[in-house]
């Protein structure tokens, strides 16, 4: 007896312990479900936008470029129900602009008609023909900063999801969703019985699927299945059907874009159909529901037939559940897939630029916040400029590869393009493969800059107008620099010749090394380096004579900063890639304001700019002639380093500043010159952008004087090859060249200018 009694007692304890254990486990799961579901915030990547295109009368842009922008935005051609389409009409574009939440507030959807005339917007009206001052398109999304796994999503509320999408989902995945308590024994039984046969619905309810995605690892064991079931029931116990459904619709994995994972119906609608989820048709939402079963298997871009078949299955199930009339079913079934064609972009089509944005952001934000808070980052990238730069680099590198055959790894290159007035970075190419997200040469390749440093030397000289003008003779004879503790430095010219006495502007235009080295050491290396620093280069350069001829190593971005200050008339603005940061709701968080600081007086900047225009007009950058018309008056400088390891070109027009570097990553001799390798890339880029002429405002204390290039004395327009050069008042040569008679020269000059002035005024006044 006592024996049996003990067994009973033991069994009793065991059952009790089991029950206790079970309840403890359930309690634990319950806590987890509650805390994780409630504490759960979807990690929302920071979303990065290009600059918005602002249309206004007078904007220089071809209608084709606007169309490209619209295509980038996923606008459809031809009228649709939802905004986000356009049509061509004669020389105009009719655009149905989508609503967008800008950093300065929401902008509603609107209709815009832009008329074009020879590459310029000539009229801008709304649908009723009323004049519009400005029409801002929404900015092109250019990527994000993602959490681990590169999960991307656009959160949607259930009320914004078309009811039909929900019905299709329920018909296909979980018939009894609204009646079961987290798991569906009937569906489970059906699934088990029909194992192996082709059935639409699996055994898992929507709730179970959500639990699986949310809380559990993907192992497939019985105990895990059991845990999933308990948690699904617990979830249903605590939360309503609508709440669970909304979370599911945002969580569900629906596709892959290279390294970016597409989650939720909000993003999937954009990714596959280029529209907001509320505008999806029955057929389109069925495509998304079809993807639930297997985003790779039913990828409508890669396996259209399979996707179509599964979509029609979804439509049929929906019809059979009574959620779709026969008519609607027939119509939806007959519709094409309707997927937008788009190149896969992954986390960004412009990884190099996004890297710059990310670095600038990291100074102000936590990495974790950037990856999860859904910040909206408005940047300065101009897709049109970026496209032009990418194409120019790719085309020329392919050409050089063919000509040189240096083997792998191939030539590399980098480009930075900025707006000279504001310092905004418009384009950044980090290497030959613009889609590659790795080594970013535009930011991280510090290479010897060669002659690109010369303008700093000449600017230092021209800042002392009592001693130096554009025609001051410089000695380009043999030059040796001796300094204690360093070997003698004996620079040579590229053509291995000495050119005797040459005017200052010619020494720069022809990039003579000996004249420049002599000038630089005369001025003092420290003074030149102080100029470089004032131009905006923060990196410490070694105070050596060889630094003057470009032994200094800078990245293309640093070079751009340096030339920026010259291009902006002596006003230094830190290069910026970001304009504003807002919360997902549009509340402004941070503005990266335009900052200017006058680093140099206007006069020497005006003179050095004229000298850099001379480089293009008659110096080492003459080759630009075949890219840009002379009226553009582009200013620039070529750079080539020892053994031609690096080829550079830096220059600017009225509205773009560009820096191009070409070379090998491993520092091999590239045997390419700045003028023949980097310059064509720059020329192609700028030519594609139809740049504005360079027009620096002339300071009052600067006068233009005709100079006879034979004698470097005053001449007049009648002297052969005479050039008009700027001088600080009172510093121009006093003596006249034999080719000009002193009195005649002045009369002639005045008559000439008055005539010109008149015709210019006439044009201005429309006479």
């Amino acid at each position, binding site marked *: 007896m006592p024996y049996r009694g003990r067994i009973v007692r033991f069994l009793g304890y065991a059952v009790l312990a089991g029950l206790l254990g079970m309840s403890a486990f359930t309690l634990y799961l319950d806590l987890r479900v509650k805390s994780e579901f409630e504490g759960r915030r979807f990690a929302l990547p920071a979303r990065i936008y290009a600059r918005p295109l602002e249309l206004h009368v007078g904007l220089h842009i071809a209608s084709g470029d606007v169309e490209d922008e619209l295509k980038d935005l996923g606008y459809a051609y031809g009228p649709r129900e939802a905004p986000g389409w356009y049509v061509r009409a004669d020389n105009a574009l009719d655009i149905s602009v989508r609503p967008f939440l800008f950093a300065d507030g929401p902008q509603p959807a609107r209709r815009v008609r832009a008329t074009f005339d020879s590459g310029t917007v000539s009229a801008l009206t709304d649908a009723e023909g009323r004049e519009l001052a400005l029409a801002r398109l929404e900015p092109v999304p250019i990527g994000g900063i993602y959490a681990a796994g590169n999960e991307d999503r656009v959160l949607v509320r259930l009320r914004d999801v078309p009811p039909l999408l929900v019905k299709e989902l329920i018909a296909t995945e979980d018939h009894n969703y609204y009646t079961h308590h987290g798991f569906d024994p009937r569906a489970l039984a059906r699934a088990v019985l029909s194992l192996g046969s082709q059935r639409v619905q699996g055994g898992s309810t929507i709730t179970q699927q959500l639990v699986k995605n949310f809380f559990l690892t993907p192992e497939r064991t019985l105990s895990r299945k059991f845990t999933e079931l308990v948690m699904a029931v617990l979830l249903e116990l605590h939360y309503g059907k609508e709440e669970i459904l909304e979370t599911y619709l945002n969580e569900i994995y629906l596709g892959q874009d290279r390294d970016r994972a597409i989650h939720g119906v909000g993003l999937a609608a954009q990714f596959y159909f280029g529209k907001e989820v509320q505008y999806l048709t029955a057929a389109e939402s069925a495509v998304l529901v079809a993807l639930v079963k297997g985003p790779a298997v039913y990828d409508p871009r890669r396996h259209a037939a399979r996707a179509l078949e599964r979509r029609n299955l979804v439509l049929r199930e929906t019809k059979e559940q009574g959620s779709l009339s026969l008519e609607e079913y027939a119509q939806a079934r007959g519709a094409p897939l309707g997927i937008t064609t788009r190149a896969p972009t992954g986390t960004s089509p412009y990884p190099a630029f996004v890297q710059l944005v990310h670095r600038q952001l990291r100074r102000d934000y936590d990495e974790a916040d950037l990856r999860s808070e859904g910040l909206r980052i408005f940047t300065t990238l101009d897709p049109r400029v970026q496209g032009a730069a990418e194409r120019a680099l790719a085309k020329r590198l392919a050409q050089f590869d063919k000509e040189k055959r240096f083997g792998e790894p191939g030539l590399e290159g980098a480009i930075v393009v900025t707006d000279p007035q504001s310092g905004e970075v418009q384009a950044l190419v980090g290497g030959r493969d613009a889609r590659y997200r790795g080594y970013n040469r535009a930011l991280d390749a510090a290479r010897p800059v060669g002659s690109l440093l010369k303008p700093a030397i000449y600017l230092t000289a021209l800042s002392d107008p009592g001693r130096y003008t554009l025609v001051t003779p410089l000695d380009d004879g043999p030059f040796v620099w001796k300094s204690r503790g360093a070997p003698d430095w004996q620079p040579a010219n590229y053509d291995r010749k000495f050119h005797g006495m040459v005017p200052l502007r010619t020494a720069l235009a022809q990039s003579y090394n000996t004249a420049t080295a002599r000038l630089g050491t005369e001025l003092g290396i420290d003074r030149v380096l102080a100029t470089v620093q004032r131009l905006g280069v923060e990196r410490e350069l070694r105070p050596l004579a060889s630094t003057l001829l470009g032994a200094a190593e800078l990245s293309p971005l640093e070079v751009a900063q340096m030339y920026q200050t010259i291009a902006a008339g002596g006003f230094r603005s830190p290069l910026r890639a970001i304009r504003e940061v807002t919360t997902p709701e549009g509340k402004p968080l941070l*503005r990266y304001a335009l900052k200017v600081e006058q680093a140099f007086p206007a006069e020497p900047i005006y003179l050095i700019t004229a000298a850099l225009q001379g480089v293009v007009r008659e110096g080492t950058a003459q080759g630009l002639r075949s890219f840009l018309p002379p009226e553009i*008056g582009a200013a620039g400088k070529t750079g080539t380093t020892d053994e031609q390891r690096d080829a550079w070109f830096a220059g600017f027009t009225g509205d773009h500043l560009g820096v191009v570097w070409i070379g090998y990553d491993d520092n091999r001799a590239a045997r390419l010159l700045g003028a023949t390798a980097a310059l064509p890339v720059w020329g192609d880029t700028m030519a594609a952008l139809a740049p504005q002429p360079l027009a620096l405002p002339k300071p009052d204390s600067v006068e233009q004087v005709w100079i006879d290039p034979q004698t470097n004395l005053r001449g007049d327009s009648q002297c052969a090859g005479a050039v008009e050069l700027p001088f600080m008042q009172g510093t121009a040569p006093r003596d006249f060249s034999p080719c000009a008679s002193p009195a005649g020269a002045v009369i002639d000059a005045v008559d000439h200018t008055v005539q010109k002035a008149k015709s210019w005024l006439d044009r201005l006044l429309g006479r």
Partner: protein
Amino acid sequence: MRRAVALLALIAAACAAPQPAPVGEAPPAPPEPAPAVKESVAIAGLMDSARSDAAAGRLAEAAATLERALRIEPRNPRLWQELARIRLQQGDFPQAESLAQRSNSWAGGDGALRAENARIIERARAGQR
């Protein structure tokens, strides 16, 4: 056009400065016009909105709008000046001074504009002391 402006500037300079006196009868040179006397519709609209923001004390918004306008017309000295004025109101004196100088660089012969820039610069310097 650039050449024409340069030449026009040359006469303006020739008339203003103690130059070698031109021989002969030169007609009176017209004063150099400011680059953008009349704003385009787009700029005028943005300027209005910036001014009403500024009047309501929304200085950050006003500055953002002016920057937006400057992207469209970077050579408009009035926009640079308006931005300088906003920075002055915000107590950002170094920027106020620099922006007024930037405005001057595009001001051409617009004496009134230059005088106003001089006032802004003076107040900005006073603020920095």
